């Protein structure tokens, strides 16, 4: 067993390296990912070892990155695109939604699209506008795309390799404010399936759902709740499209209460879909309505106000209190 203590960022770097070693058709594309190693250094050292044809410093054009990835995929390559920041994915939105997502269906399966779109997402880093967005609902709403969000170094290491090996396009969301979080990663383990949710902390009173950067927040809330004698079960959703709600349904049938947490604006966010599905399948078990803790329905605010925008431990606990009060 080879175990290393890795940050999420380093785990992604090692995962990308291993994917490139395993499959010569894997090509990394993005702005500043080669010589610089990416603005977050996720691709650090890869161009030096794999060359400029496999780690491509692209022109500054996101539609170009994703659009040319489509052509490379048609030619048999497995492009891994880095979008530098979440707010910059929108110039590529057309290619993602009208082309990448539909190619397999419209070709009746003749043209596979094994493309990965890596996006550092979410706020909490004191950034300027367009650097703290959570755009996952747009992509989860689009048939043909798969969407995952990692929350820890283990999932980062394995998840990026699984996403690259997957035959379908995967929007791979990386919790940028957690890039430096560390954990032990067993590099020889058998990974869990990419498209599965996981209970990360057992509990009896309320089921708390989170993904990406909010998993840590949910776990902190569970610690705090425990001090007050409340037992929270925390589920890391991991996959946002397809949703894997089986562990959630099983949990909510037991706890009778459910709180969904995400940074994205609340209205029509993932929480809305999850609330509808949990209600459909757990109606007779529910002791309280499914509650959502999300970003407010405003443009992501300037950095000095983001702590009031983002869900935190206290807002999660507040929702837990409301759920328990029903």
């Amino acid at each position: 067993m080879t175990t290393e203590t890795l940050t999420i960022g380093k785990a992604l770097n090692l995962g990308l390296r291993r994917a490139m070693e395993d499959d010569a058709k894997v090509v990394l594309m993005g702005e500043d990912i080669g010589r610089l190693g990416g603005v977050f250094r996720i691709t650090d050292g890869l161009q030096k070892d794999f060359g400029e044809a496999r780690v491509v410093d692209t022109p500054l054009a996101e539609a170009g990155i994703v659009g040319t990835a489509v052509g490379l995929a048609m030619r048999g390559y497995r492009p891994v695109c880095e979008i530098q920041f979440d707010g910059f994915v929108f110039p590529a939105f057309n290619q993602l939604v009208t082309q990448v997502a539909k190619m397999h269906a419209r070709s009746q399966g003749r043209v596979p699209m094994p493309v990965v779109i890596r996006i550092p997402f979410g706020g909490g880093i004191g950034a300027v506008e367009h650097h703290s967005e959570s755009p996952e609902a747009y992509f989860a709403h689009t048939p043909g795309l798969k969407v995952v969000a990692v929350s820890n170094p283990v999932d980062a290491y394995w998840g990026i390799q699984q996403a690259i090996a997957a035959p379908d396009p995967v929007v791979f969301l990386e919790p940028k404010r957690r890039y430096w979080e560390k954990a032990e990663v067993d590099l020889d383990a058998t990974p869990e399936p990419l498209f599965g949710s996981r209970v990360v902390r057992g509990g009896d009173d309320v089921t708390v759902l989170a993904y990406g950067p909010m998993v840590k927040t949910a776990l902190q809330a569970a610690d705090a709740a425990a001090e007050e004698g409340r037992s929270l079960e925390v589920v890391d959703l991991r996959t946002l499209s397809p949703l894997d709600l089986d562990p959630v349904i099983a949990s909510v049938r037991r706890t009778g209460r459910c709180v969904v947490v995400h940074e994205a604006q609340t209205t029509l966010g993932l929480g809305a879909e999850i609330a509808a599905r949990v209600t459909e399948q757990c109606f007779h078990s529910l002791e309280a309505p499914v509650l959502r803790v999300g970003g407010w329905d405003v443009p992501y605010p300037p950095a000095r106000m983001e702590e009031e925008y983002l869900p935190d431990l206290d807002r999660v606990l507040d929702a837990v209190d409301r759920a328990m009060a029903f």
Partner: protein
Amino acid sequence: MPTVPATAVADPVPGAGAPHLPRQPDLVQLLTPEGQRVEDPVYSIDPTPDELRGLYRDLVLVRRWDTEATALQRQGELGLWASLLGQEAAQVGAGHALRPDDMAFPTYREHGVAWVRGVDPLHVMSLFRGVDNGGWDPVETGFNLYTIVIPAQTLHATGYAMGVQRDGAETAVLAFFGDGATSQGEINEAMIWAASFQAPVVFFCQNNQYAISAPIERQSRVPLYQRAAGFGFPGVRVDGNDVLAVLAVTRAALAAAREGQGPTFIEAFTYRMGAHTTSDDPTRYRLADELEEWKLRDPIARLKVYLAHEGLGDADFFAGVEAEGDELAARIRSGTTSMEPPPAVSMFDAVYAEQTPPLAAQRAEFEAYQASFEGSSS
């Protein structure tokens, strides 16, 4: 804010307005509208009699297909048809310039290229009938599915060409688009990428003078082919109604791409003789005189004159091609009218290469819902 009258942009640049083919000194032409062979200082071609007859045959057959498709739409058998009328030479010439292992990325109007690539016309008709999104195999035919969003396919072509580079293959890629497309951001990105990476892709613009109703003057203040200079690769304007010139120019550009010389921009100067699609009414935005003038530059008539004058095609040959066209039209008609959509449940089946449990569940829900009507009296 000062307003600019619409007339102020009419033909503001010499050479940027329509129609003015004979006044174009920078237009590559090998066969005049009158059917005279002429020489070009750069581009030459020496087709055999069989090749010339083959080009003529393709021009006639794709026009016959197009006529039949328009009729079928009028009769309610197609939801829509995007006519290629007037653009046959641009498409047949470009199609013939391709080698079998080259790859073409069409818009939704390249029926003539589809024909040359060996795509079954019925696989195109199924798209416009609403049965599927195009029934042909893009890999097998070297002809991608039609792309409706303008001009998303130019980036796909560029990326494909980057793959060709990595494979070390002697393959060239041909990206089709129209004059309107040149205003889009994505094609400008495609040309920047192609130039930056010297990708083996040729940008083939059919300037048919209109983007639905918007004339070319709304898209560009300079002749389109001159834009290539700004991206750092050659641009050439060819008489798009001259199948020989289009073939020669495109063949040369594809050869240069295969040899590692990077992209070329080809502006095939032509005219959309029909409507944008069967939903369009061009009488609202262009004059009949203009259409009449372009009829004199018809791409088929000039080759017929040339073949007849040179003794390369006699009455029997021309009658034979006409008869072949009628047979093709009959096959297209019967094949189209008898075409049924697949079972609706199939819409769930190719969304992903790996089906997801939620979608499989929704598929089952749909099937159960449909089955609930079985045996009901209505």
